[in-house]
């Protein structure tokens, strides 16, 4: 935990734990919804939330010195790029609903 000023470390760990719980709960919901519907938009929602969980995992990895700071930034911002790409793809491929 050398990269962080000491007094912020417990706060950071707390935030990471809460983020992990929150994103995992959301991912669970998204996965249940995908199993129910089985459509591509729901699969993309699962993909985005997997990326969100991955961010927290990398964050926890850095706090416990498993992921070095340099790799941390590269991975985190690559995940942002991927998230944007998945969402843009989802938006672009959402067809106009057919009214009946």
């Amino acid at each position, binding site marked *: 935990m050398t990269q962080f000023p000491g007094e912020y470390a417990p706060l950071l760990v707390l935030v990471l734990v809460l983020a992990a719980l929150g994103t995992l709960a959301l991912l669970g*919901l*998204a996965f*249940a*919804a995908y199993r*129910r519907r089985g459509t591509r*938009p729901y699969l993309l929602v699962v993909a985005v939330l997997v990326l969100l969980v991955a961010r927290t995992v990398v964050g926890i990895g850095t706090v416990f010195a498993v992921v070095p700071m340099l790799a941390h930034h590269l991975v985190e911002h690559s995940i942002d790029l991927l998230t944007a790409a998945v969402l843009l793809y989802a938006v672009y491929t*959402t067809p106009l609903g057919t009214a009946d």
Partner: protein
Amino acid sequence: MADTRTRIETSIETHPGIHFSEIVRRLELAPGQVQYHLKRLRADDTVVAEPVYGKTHYFPPEYTDWERDALALLRRETAGGVVAYLLANGPATPAAVADSLDIARSTLEWHLDRLVDHQLVSKHRDQSNHVTLTVDQRDRTVQLLREADPTLRERMVDRFTRLVDKLLDQ
């Protein structure tokens, strides 16, 4: 051991349509223990198991096939809401139901497919092909709707799909 079995039986009687993991959670028992007792209860026809859309629900034996399917469906908040609206307001068009419940048409249609499949709701078309929705077995459906209480998880998954459908439908 008979005591545990009675608790499982009571839990199924008070929550008809309960599923396996919920019995384990509510009674704080080991899954293997619940599995063992359910097997015995099913063998002497004290409870009936019914797989509905990928999940096994458990019922007391007095429920008919139609009632078991209906109850499993009504435990979903949106499906229950659609049926409750039709019971309260009488026959209505899909557009009126979707508007009133503030759900996307895709959400409504997904639930209607299942409600129609299981003869809870029927679609009537007039000469100009306009659809009207009605509840088939009014009295029994009202009763079942009262017994159906969705778990927190079911409620959350239901609300999550409504939200995503709405976002995608705009």
